[in-house]
């Protein structure tokens, strides 16, 4: 009998990659960036909404109003998150599928649990949206919804951690193949998750502040409170995130850090950290300013830039981690340009159609929105 093989990363399929790597990489980063915007609003927004609902229950009227506004926004934000996440996962699977499929199988039970957890959380947002204005245990329900989204985020953080450490998968698979592994032994998991949640809170805080910008004509007092309150969430979370992010970086394997820091993409990380510091300063300033409007706008612009830089940094860290583990990209590339063109045309048409529909809806927006 032949000896059993040693474990290794999966091999590339004997199928050509249907687009150049640079194009797939661009599409991955664009769709992932578009995905993280609503995803952060959902995750961070559900946390802020739960807190606001408890405060509203104790008589704080602006918080009660904020909870209602977020409740109405969250179902649509979840829909956008799921929809944009599909595209990002597609391109990620084409580029890194061999690592992602393997890590997903190792934690299959938890990975699949994302589906029922998301269904529960999604319906939870609709229930609170429809019934939250009536008496009921809505602070508790909102908290459960936030916990569900935090659990899903934890599962994602585990899978992305496992996928970046294929060197650890072999031993785990030898020990148990029931799909019950998490990346709990990875010292980078906790700071990674903390970084993820704090980023979400920061973006959702900015979203709250922007709600204030939008309502400053109709409800000036509530709008001002929203800008300050959102600015505080955003600034505090970003300041804490500078610590969490540093912790994450230091918790990575030493060779990975050295390799990453010696490459050009490290510039994106340093620029992102600097930009994050500016976000924290601007947002905290907005939370105490007499007229926070311009500060909120500046925070928004800087935060978008920070997110972009962090998305690039995250991707390059993955490229370096996988490369160090022996992952090589598919060198058989045969671009399917006619289909690429068709996709771009349909994508543009979809954006145009969506824009037309949303503009039609908001042209006749109700005064309360």
């Amino acid at each position, binding site marked *: *009998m*032949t*000896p*059993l*093989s*040693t*474990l290794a990363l*999966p*091999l*590339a*399929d*004997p*199928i*050509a*990659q*249907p687009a150049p790597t640079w194009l797939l990489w661009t599409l991955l980063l664009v769709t992932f960036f578009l995905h993280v915007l609503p995803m952060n609003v959902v995750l961070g927004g559900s946390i802020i909404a739960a807190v606001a609902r408890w405060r509203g229950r104790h008589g704080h009227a602006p918080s009660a109003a904020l909870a209602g506004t977020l409740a109405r926004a969250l179902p649509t934000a979840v*829909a956008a998150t*799921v*929809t*944009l*996440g*599909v*595209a990002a996962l*597609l391109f990620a*699977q*084409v580029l890194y*599928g*061999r690592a992602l*499929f*393997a890590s997903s*199988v*190792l934690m*299959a039970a938890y990975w*699949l649990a*994302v*589906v029922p957890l*998301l*269904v529960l959380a*999604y*319906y939870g947002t*609709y229930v609170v949206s429809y019934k939250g204005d009536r008496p009921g245990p809505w602070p508790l329900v909102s908290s459960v919804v936030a916990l569900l989204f935090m659990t899903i985020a934890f599962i994602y953080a585990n899978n992305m951690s496992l996928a970046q450490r294929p060197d650890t998968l072999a031993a785990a*698979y030898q020990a148990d*193949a*029931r*799909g019950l592994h998490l990346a709990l032994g990875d010292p980078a998991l906790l700071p990674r998750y903390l970084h993820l949640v704090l980023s979400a809170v920061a973006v959702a805080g900015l979203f709250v502040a922007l709600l204030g910008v939008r309502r400053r004509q109709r409800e000036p007092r509530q709008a001002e409170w929203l800008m300050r309150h959102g600015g505080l969430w955003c600034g505090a979370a970003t300041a804490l995130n500078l610590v969490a992010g540093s912790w994450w970086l230091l918790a990575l394997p030493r060779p990975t850090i050295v390799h990453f820091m010696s490459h050009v993409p490290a510039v994106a990380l340093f620029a992102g950290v600097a930009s994050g510091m500016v976000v924290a300063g601007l947002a905290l300033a907005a939370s105490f300013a007499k007229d926070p409007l311009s500060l909120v706008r500046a925070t928004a612009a800087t935060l978008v830039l920070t997110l972009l830089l962090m998305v690039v940094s995250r991707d390059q860290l993955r490229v370096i981690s996988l490369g160090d583990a022996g992952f090589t990209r598919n*060198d*058989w590339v045969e671009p*399917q340009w006619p*289909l690429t063109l*068709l*996709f771009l045309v*349909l*994508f543009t048409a*979809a954006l145009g*159609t*969506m824009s037309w*529909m*949303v503009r*039609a*809806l908001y042209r006749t927006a109700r005064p309360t929105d």
Partner: protein
Amino acid sequence: MNYPIWDLPSSGLLIAGIAILHVFISHFAVGGGLFLVLAERRARRTGDAEFLGYVIRHSRFFVLLTLVLGAVTGVGIWFTIGLVHPAGTSSLIQTWMWVWAIEWTFFATEIAAALVYYYGWHRLDPATHLAVGWVYFWSAWLSLFAINGILTFMLTPGAWVTTRSLLDGFFNPTFWPSLVARTAGAAGLAGVYALVTAAWERDPTLRARVSRFAALGWILPMAVVLPAALVWYLAAAAGAGVPVAALLGARSGTATGILRALLSGADSGQPITRFAGMLMIWASLTCLALVLAAQWQRLRRAPRAIALAIAACALVTLGGAEWVREGLRKPYVIGQFMFVNGVRLPAPAPVHALAGAHAARVAQDPFDLAHLSRAGVLTAARWTRPASDALQGLDRTLHDGSEVYRLLCASCHSVDHYNAVRPLVRGRPVEALDGMLARLATPAAATGGPGEWTDPAVRLVTWRDRAMPPFAGTDGERRALAVYLASLGGATRESLEAKPAVADPGVAFFEANCAMCHGVDGQWPMAGRPRRDAAAFYELLGALPRINELMPEFTGSEAERRAVAAHLAVLTGHGSTPAPTTPALEIPR
């Protein structure tokens, strides 16, 4: 074997459960969109405020079901197939990436349109609102159009097998009949769901009007179009080489032949696929009968229970149909490209040429049947659990056999649960199992004669039409798997360790080639059959497929034929002593 394997009993059921739930909702998402715009247009044209009120309430149900459960279970299927069939999923993603991406543009537009349609009831003017409804429907239908191309490709890849042209793969032989069937099914489901929401309307007159509109305008037309489309679909699949009649246990591939086989039972065919087909037929007939009965009684009695029963029957019908489709595709996960266990067919010659500078990647695919048979599955697999050096002898063989089982069999079979293997091997000797494994599937040419795996038009001849992939591995690995299966079937260590006695060649041949069906624990044991002498059995052995078309030709030597005939005579009690014999059967010519 390129990927780790999730040790989950009945993983196929997991896919089926999520997929059927998703399909039941996603088809409603398509047909229901058309229902909403046509119902809204009718209500607005006739100024029927009550009917419009119903459409608005129905749209809320529609959004809550399709946007949440429909969309998330769609992602759920993707997650699940990635966990259960990562190799197949990876191939589909790499091959169809741009079609998935294009489908995503429709999906994104569909989701946005559904939200704007729902939130726009009181905010958009009627013309714009209807226009958004049409955007929704066409996006949803185009999403179905794209996915239908990939789903049908998995069953009948057509000329793609040699050209690798996406157009050939997309517009494959079953594309159009499947598209018509799915569109009709989506329209019918829209009617079924409308019956459900109508049953919750308080006004009995409105309830009756909506249910009549749903039954006569949506369900009954589907009841005419759908069966015709399914017949077209099955004929197209059969024309593309899918052994439809054989898998369903039918003597002919005609609609009546298949119906007769499904409704009256048959010994051959793939049992689960046949059961799913039978379930589909009975559930659809029950569904139709309930729809008609409800119309006659106008839902006066227990409208909600009747509506839910109709929906349940529709779910079973759709589930059965999807199961049949999956069953027809077996043992492939991607037709003529990859088997359900991740083993690929050796690429046909034109593909080597198409690969150009990367021809070596195709020619030296470590996971194709030819390489696995030479190198061994345990050597090629990237994710196996190695045996410790301390394991020797039978323990080592059992370990290797269990690993081969995980790599090649566990994607469909559990040991004791769904598609359980233990009852199938109970009491079977190693030789019988080894012989059966050797002939799980053999290649045949499209004309019916012996074929080659590299033939682009290769057909599968599978053991008793059970739709199993061929064994991929070395003879030693096949033997180890047979030993492991025999141990699952209750063989003792002593019997597994015992060296096979130098047996009578007739006994040895019978054990290796006939005992799975005709042994002591087989479905048709020889013991107790009419006694015949060796000469009579000798004649019968020369005409096995004519006695029963499921039996293969006798391929042994002349000496083996005589020895087997003598052994069969002993098994039927004729023995070596002269005794009155039953005349040989008249062999059909």
